[in-house]
Protein backbone atom coordinates (compact mmCIF):
# COMPACT_ATOMS: atom_id res chain seq x y z
CA UNK A 1 0.00 0.00 0.00
CA UNK A 2 2.82 2.35 1.00
CA UNK A 3 4.64 1.44 -2.19
CA UNK A 4 1.55 2.27 -4.27
CA UNK A 5 1.17 5.65 -2.54
CA UNK A 6 4.83 6.45 -3.16
CA UNK A 7 4.47 5.42 -6.81
CA UNK A 8 1.36 7.60 -7.24
CA UNK A 9 3.14 10.58 -5.66
CA UNK A 10 6.18 10.10 -7.91
CA UNK A 11 3.94 9.81 -10.94
CA UNK A 12 2.14 13.02 -10.03
CA UNK A 13 5.41 14.85 -9.54
CA UNK A 14 6.87 13.53 -12.78
CA UNK A 15 3.82 14.48 -14.77
CA UNK A 16 3.71 17.85 -13.15
CA UNK A 17 0.32 17.37 -11.59
CA UNK A 18 1.23 19.62 -8.71
CA UNK A 19 -1.38 21.98 -7.28
CA UNK A 20 0.73 25.04 -8.07
CA UNK A 21 0.98 24.03 -11.74
CA UNK A 22 -2.71 23.49 -12.25
CA UNK A 23 -5.74 25.70 -12.19
CA UNK A 24 -8.60 24.48 -10.07
CA UNK A 25 -11.84 23.49 -11.76
CA UNK A 26 -13.61 26.05 -9.59
CA UNK A 27 -11.37 28.84 -10.84
CA UNK A 28 -11.87 27.80 -14.46
CA UNK A 29 -15.63 27.87 -14.06
CA UNK A 30 -15.66 31.11 -12.10
CA UNK A 31 -13.52 32.97 -14.64
CA UNK A 32 -15.69 35.10 -16.87
CA UNK A 33 -13.17 34.65 -19.70
CA UNK A 34 -14.01 30.95 -19.87
CA UNK A 35 -17.72 31.54 -20.42
CA UNK A 36 -17.17 34.47 -22.76
CA UNK A 37 -15.03 32.17 -24.87
CA UNK A 38 -17.58 29.34 -24.79
CA UNK A 39 -20.35 31.78 -25.78
CA UNK A 40 -18.16 33.15 -28.60
CA UNK A 41 -17.39 29.66 -29.95
CA UNK A 42 -21.05 28.56 -29.76
CA UNK A 43 -22.36 31.76 -31.36
CA UNK A 44 -19.84 31.61 -34.20
CA UNK A 45 -20.65 27.93 -34.85
CA UNK A 46 -24.35 28.77 -34.92
CA UNK A 47 -23.86 31.64 -37.36
CA UNK A 48 -21.45 29.83 -39.71
CA UNK A 49 -23.47 26.60 -39.58
CA UNK A 50 -26.65 28.47 -40.54
CA UNK A 51 -25.07 30.62 -43.25
CA UNK A 52 -23.14 27.83 -44.92
CA UNK A 53 -26.12 25.44 -44.92
CA UNK A 54 -28.90 27.87 -45.76
CA UNK A 55 -29.83 25.93 -48.89
CA UNK A 56 -30.00 22.61 -47.05
CA UNK A 57 -32.03 24.15 -44.21
CA UNK A 58 -34.60 25.42 -46.74
CA UNK A 59 -34.81 21.97 -48.33
CA UNK A 60 -35.20 20.36 -44.90
CA UNK A 61 -38.05 22.73 -44.01
CA UNK A 62 -39.66 21.94 -47.38
CA UNK A 63 -39.70 18.29 -46.32
CA UNK A 64 -37.11 16.85 -48.74
CA UNK A 65 -35.32 14.92 -45.99
CA UNK A 66 -38.38 13.69 -44.09
CA UNK A 67 -37.60 10.04 -44.69
CA UNK A 68 -33.86 9.97 -45.24
CA UNK A 69 -30.91 12.30 -45.68
CA UNK A 70 -30.61 11.64 -49.35
CA UNK A 71 -30.23 14.40 -51.88
CA UNK A 72 -32.42 13.97 -54.95
CA UNK A 73 -29.62 15.39 -57.10
CA UNK A 74 -27.10 12.90 -55.72
CA UNK A 75 -29.40 9.88 -55.78
CA UNK A 76 -31.79 10.23 -58.71
CA UNK A 77 -34.08 7.24 -59.13
CA UNK A 78 -34.16 6.43 -55.42
CA UNK A 79 -37.68 6.68 -54.05
CA UNK A 80 -39.54 5.61 -50.92
CA UNK A 81 -42.66 3.54 -51.41
CA UNK A 82 -45.62 2.60 -49.22
CA UNK A 83 -47.01 -0.85 -48.41
CA UNK A 84 -49.66 -0.49 -51.14
CA UNK A 85 -47.05 0.33 -53.78
CA UNK A 86 -44.80 -2.51 -52.59
CA UNK A 87 -47.76 -4.91 -52.68
CA UNK A 88 -48.69 -3.82 -56.22
CA UNK A 89 -45.14 -4.28 -57.45
CA UNK A 90 -44.94 -7.72 -55.86
CA UNK A 91 -48.30 -9.01 -57.16
CA UNK A 92 -47.64 -7.70 -60.68
CA UNK A 93 -44.02 -8.95 -60.53
CA UNK A 94 -42.75 -5.61 -61.75
CA UNK A 95 -39.89 -5.51 -59.27
CA UNK A 96 -37.29 -7.72 -57.68
CA UNK A 97 -37.34 -7.60 -53.88
CA UNK A 98 -34.08 -7.39 -51.94
CA UNK A 99 -33.97 -8.30 -48.24
CA UNK A 100 -31.15 -6.40 -46.50
CA UNK A 101 -31.60 -8.05 -43.08
CA UNK A 102 -29.23 -10.66 -41.69
CA UNK A 103 -29.21 -14.16 -43.20
CA UNK A 104 -30.74 -15.53 -39.99
CA UNK A 105 -33.68 -13.13 -40.15
CA UNK A 106 -34.18 -13.90 -43.83
CA UNK A 107 -34.28 -17.65 -43.15
CA UNK A 108 -36.93 -17.15 -40.45
CA UNK A 109 -39.23 -15.46 -42.93
CA UNK A 110 -39.17 -13.11 -45.90
CA UNK A 111 -41.21 -11.74 -48.79
CA UNK A 112 -41.56 -14.61 -51.31
CA UNK A 113 -39.04 -14.36 -54.12
CA UNK A 114 -36.87 -11.82 -52.29
CA UNK A 115 -33.10 -12.11 -52.67
CA UNK A 116 -31.10 -12.00 -49.43
CA UNK A 117 -28.32 -9.38 -49.49
CA UNK A 118 -27.39 -8.66 -45.85
CA UNK A 119 -25.89 -5.20 -45.58
CA UNK A 120 -22.76 -6.36 -43.76
CA UNK A 121 -22.02 -8.97 -46.42
CA UNK A 122 -22.66 -6.45 -49.17
CA UNK A 123 -19.96 -4.24 -47.67
CA UNK A 124 -17.45 -7.11 -47.44
CA UNK A 125 -18.21 -9.08 -50.60
CA UNK A 126 -19.59 -6.29 -52.74
CA UNK A 127 -18.74 -7.56 -56.23
CA UNK A 128 -19.72 -11.16 -55.53
CA UNK A 129 -23.12 -10.33 -54.07
CA UNK A 130 -24.00 -7.54 -56.44
CA UNK A 131 -23.44 -9.88 -59.38
CA UNK A 132 -26.54 -11.89 -58.43
CA UNK A 133 -28.85 -8.87 -58.46
CA UNK A 134 -30.70 -8.34 -61.74
CA UNK A 135 -30.47 -4.81 -63.12
CA UNK A 136 -34.01 -4.85 -64.52
CA UNK A 137 -36.81 -4.24 -63.64
CA UNK A 138 -36.77 -2.01 -60.58
CA UNK A 139 -35.51 -3.16 -57.20
CA UNK A 140 -37.46 -2.89 -53.96
CA UNK A 141 -35.28 -2.94 -50.86
CA UNK A 142 -36.62 -3.65 -47.41
CA UNK A 143 -35.39 -4.40 -43.91
CA UNK A 144 -37.16 -4.99 -40.60
CA UNK A 145 -39.20 -1.76 -40.66
CA UNK A 146 -39.59 0.93 -38.04
CA UNK A 147 -36.27 2.69 -37.71
CA UNK A 148 -34.19 0.06 -39.53
CA UNK A 149 -31.64 1.58 -41.86
CA UNK A 150 -29.96 -1.34 -43.61
CA UNK A 151 -32.19 -1.08 -46.72
CA UNK A 152 -31.29 2.60 -47.08
CA UNK A 153 -27.59 1.95 -46.60
CA UNK A 154 -27.71 -0.95 -49.07
CA UNK A 155 -29.49 1.35 -51.55
CA UNK A 156 -26.57 3.76 -51.27
CA UNK A 157 -24.11 0.94 -52.06
CA UNK A 158 -26.22 -0.23 -55.01
CA UNK A 159 -26.54 3.30 -56.32
CA UNK A 160 -22.78 3.77 -56.12
CA UNK A 161 -22.41 0.49 -58.04
CA UNK A 162 -24.49 1.81 -60.91
CA UNK A 163 -27.97 0.54 -60.05
CA UNK A 164 -30.82 2.92 -60.87
CA UNK A 165 -34.54 2.64 -60.24
CA UNK A 166 -34.23 1.76 -56.56
CA UNK A 167 -37.26 1.78 -54.27
CA UNK A 168 -37.14 1.56 -50.52
CA UNK A 169 -40.09 -0.01 -48.82
CA UNK A 170 -39.68 1.75 -45.49
CA UNK A 171 -42.50 -0.16 -43.74
CA UNK A 172 -40.40 -3.27 -44.25
CA UNK A 173 -40.98 -6.77 -42.98
CA UNK A 174 -43.07 -5.64 -39.98
CA UNK A 175 -45.61 -3.80 -42.13
CA UNK A 176 -45.72 -6.58 -44.71
CA UNK A 177 -46.50 -9.31 -42.15
CA UNK A 178 -48.91 -7.06 -40.20
CA UNK A 179 -50.92 -6.64 -43.43
CA UNK A 180 -51.18 -10.43 -43.77
CA UNK A 181 -49.38 -10.51 -47.13
CA UNK A 182 -47.70 -13.74 -48.35
CA UNK A 183 -44.50 -14.81 -46.60
CA UNK A 184 -41.97 -17.52 -47.26
CA UNK A 185 -39.38 -19.38 -45.24
CA UNK A 186 -36.16 -20.69 -46.71
CA UNK A 187 -37.23 -24.37 -46.43
CA UNK A 188 -40.36 -23.66 -48.51
CA UNK A 189 -38.42 -22.27 -51.46
Amino acid sequence: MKLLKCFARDLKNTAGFLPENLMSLKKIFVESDTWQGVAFILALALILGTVSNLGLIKRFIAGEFNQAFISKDQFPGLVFISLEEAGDLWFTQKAVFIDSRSGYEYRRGHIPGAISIPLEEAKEKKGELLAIIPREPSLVLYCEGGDCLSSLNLARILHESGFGNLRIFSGGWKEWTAAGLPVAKESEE
Partner: protein
Amino acid sequence: MSLKSKPILIVFRLIVGGVFIWAAVTKIADPLSFAQDVKNYRLVGQTLSFLTAIFLPWLELIAGVSLIIGVFPRSSALVISGLLVFFIVLITVTMIRGIDVNCGCFGTFSRKADFLLILEDSIWLLMSLILLFSRENDFCLLKRKS
Protein backbone atom coordinates in the same frame (compact mmCIF):
# COMPACT_ATOMS: atom_id res chain seq x y z
CA MET B 1 8.22 16.41 -17.59
CA SER B 2 6.16 19.11 -16.02
CA LEU B 3 3.02 20.76 -17.23
CA LYS B 4 5.07 23.90 -17.37
CA SER B 5 6.94 22.31 -20.23
CA LYS B 6 5.87 24.59 -23.08
CA PRO B 7 6.81 22.41 -26.07
CA ILE B 8 4.62 19.56 -24.85
CA LEU B 9 1.63 21.86 -24.44
CA ILE B 10 2.13 23.29 -27.91
CA VAL B 11 2.32 19.78 -29.35
CA PHE B 12 -0.89 18.83 -27.50
CA ARG B 13 -2.63 21.89 -28.87
CA LEU B 14 -1.55 21.15 -32.40
CA ILE B 15 -2.59 17.49 -32.13
CA VAL B 16 -6.00 18.01 -30.47
CA GLY B 17 -6.81 21.11 -32.52
CA GLY B 18 -5.65 19.39 -35.71
CA VAL B 19 -7.77 16.29 -35.05
CA PHE B 20 -10.85 18.46 -34.47
CA ILE B 21 -10.23 20.56 -37.58
CA TRP B 22 -9.77 17.45 -39.71
CA ALA B 23 -12.91 15.83 -38.22
CA ALA B 24 -14.90 19.02 -38.87
CA VAL B 25 -13.76 19.55 -42.46
CA THR B 26 -14.70 15.99 -43.50
CA LYS B 27 -18.20 16.52 -42.07
CA ILE B 28 -18.72 20.03 -43.43
CA ALA B 29 -17.94 18.65 -46.89
CA ASP B 30 -20.98 16.34 -46.74
CA PRO B 31 -23.57 17.35 -44.11
CA LEU B 32 -26.24 14.95 -45.36
CA SER B 33 -24.02 11.90 -44.95
CA PHE B 34 -23.12 13.06 -41.47
CA ALA B 35 -26.81 13.60 -40.65
CA GLN B 36 -27.43 9.99 -41.71
CA ASP B 37 -24.51 8.85 -39.53
CA VAL B 38 -26.06 10.66 -36.56
CA LYS B 39 -29.44 9.06 -37.33
CA ASN B 40 -27.78 5.63 -37.47
CA TYR B 41 -27.05 5.87 -33.72
CA ARG B 42 -30.87 5.66 -33.21
CA LEU B 43 -30.85 8.14 -30.36
CA VAL B 44 -32.44 11.16 -31.98
CA GLY B 45 -34.98 11.73 -34.72
CA GLN B 46 -34.74 13.30 -38.14
CA THR B 47 -34.79 16.96 -37.03
CA LEU B 48 -32.19 16.65 -34.27
CA SER B 49 -29.94 14.57 -36.54
CA PHE B 50 -30.15 17.33 -39.14
CA LEU B 51 -29.45 20.13 -36.65
CA THR B 52 -26.49 18.18 -35.24
CA ALA B 53 -25.07 17.76 -38.74
CA ILE B 54 -25.47 21.47 -39.45
CA PHE B 55 -23.88 22.86 -36.27
CA LEU B 56 -21.61 20.25 -34.67
CA PRO B 57 -18.92 20.27 -37.41
CA TRP B 58 -18.68 24.07 -37.18
CA LEU B 59 -18.41 23.86 -33.40
CA GLU B 60 -15.55 21.37 -33.81
CA LEU B 61 -13.85 23.54 -36.41
CA ILE B 62 -14.01 26.77 -34.42
CA ALA B 63 -12.96 25.05 -31.19
CA GLY B 64 -10.03 23.39 -32.99
CA VAL B 65 -8.86 26.61 -34.65
CA SER B 66 -9.27 28.59 -31.41
CA LEU B 67 -7.19 26.06 -29.52
CA ILE B 68 -4.35 26.19 -32.02
CA ILE B 69 -4.17 29.93 -32.55
CA GLY B 70 -4.86 30.69 -28.91
CA VAL B 71 -8.11 32.63 -29.01
CA PHE B 72 -9.92 31.61 -25.82
CA PRO B 73 -7.72 28.49 -25.52
CA ARG B 74 -9.17 27.47 -22.17
CA SER B 75 -12.73 27.82 -23.44
CA SER B 76 -11.94 25.80 -26.55
CA ALA B 77 -10.26 23.13 -24.41
CA LEU B 78 -13.43 23.09 -22.29
CA VAL B 79 -15.69 22.73 -25.35
CA ILE B 80 -13.45 20.02 -26.82
CA SER B 81 -13.29 18.13 -23.51
CA GLY B 82 -17.08 18.31 -23.22
CA LEU B 83 -17.55 17.01 -26.77
CA LEU B 84 -15.07 14.17 -26.19
CA VAL B 85 -16.82 13.11 -22.98
CA PHE B 86 -20.09 13.13 -24.92
CA PHE B 87 -18.59 11.04 -27.77
CA ILE B 88 -17.13 8.49 -25.33
CA VAL B 89 -20.50 8.11 -23.54
CA LEU B 90 -22.31 7.88 -26.89
CA ILE B 91 -20.03 5.14 -28.24
CA THR B 92 -20.23 3.21 -24.97
CA VAL B 93 -24.04 3.37 -24.93
CA THR B 94 -24.17 2.36 -28.61
CA MET B 95 -21.93 -0.64 -27.94
CA ILE B 96 -24.03 -1.68 -24.93
CA ARG B 97 -27.18 -1.45 -27.08
CA GLY B 98 -25.50 -3.75 -29.59
CA ILE B 99 -25.85 -1.31 -32.49
CA ASP B 100 -23.24 -1.81 -35.18
CA VAL B 101 -22.63 1.66 -36.56
CA ASN B 102 -20.02 3.74 -38.33
CA CYS B 103 -18.82 6.42 -35.93
CA GLY B 104 -19.25 9.24 -38.45
CA CYS B 105 -16.31 11.00 -36.81
CA PHE B 106 -14.26 11.63 -39.95
CA GLY B 107 -16.84 11.72 -42.77
CA THR B 108 -16.05 9.10 -45.39
CA PHE B 109 -12.90 8.11 -43.45
CA SER B 110 -15.02 7.01 -40.49
CA ARG B 111 -14.74 3.58 -39.00
CA LYS B 112 -16.76 1.38 -36.69
CA ALA B 113 -17.73 2.77 -33.28
CA ASP B 114 -15.90 0.34 -31.02
CA PHE B 115 -13.60 0.01 -28.02
CA LEU B 116 -10.56 1.23 -29.99
CA LEU B 117 -12.40 4.43 -30.79
CA ILE B 118 -13.16 4.95 -27.10
CA LEU B 119 -9.45 4.51 -26.39
CA GLU B 120 -8.55 6.98 -29.12
CA ASP B 121 -11.04 9.57 -27.82
CA SER B 122 -9.74 9.03 -24.29
CA ILE B 123 -6.22 9.97 -25.44
CA TRP B 124 -7.52 13.20 -27.01
CA LEU B 125 -9.54 13.84 -23.85
CA LEU B 126 -6.48 13.45 -21.64
CA MET B 127 -4.52 15.93 -23.77
CA SER B 128 -7.45 18.32 -23.82
CA LEU B 129 -7.87 18.15 -20.04
CA ILE B 130 -4.17 18.86 -19.54
CA LEU B 131 -4.59 21.95 -21.73
CA LEU B 132 -7.72 22.95 -19.83
CA PHE B 133 -6.04 22.82 -16.44
CA SER B 134 -2.62 24.10 -17.46
CA ARG B 135 -1.59 27.63 -16.57
CA GLU B 136 0.60 28.07 -19.62
CA ASN B 137 -0.67 30.23 -22.47
CA ASP B 138 1.75 30.08 -25.37
CA PHE B 139 0.59 31.17 -28.79
CA CYS B 140 -2.31 33.06 -27.25
CA LEU B 141 -3.63 35.93 -29.30
CA LEU B 142 -5.83 36.81 -26.37
CA LYS B 143 -3.88 36.32 -23.17
CA ARG B 144 -5.82 34.56 -20.48
CA LYS B 145 -5.51 35.11 -16.78
CA SER B 146 -3.66 32.45 -14.82
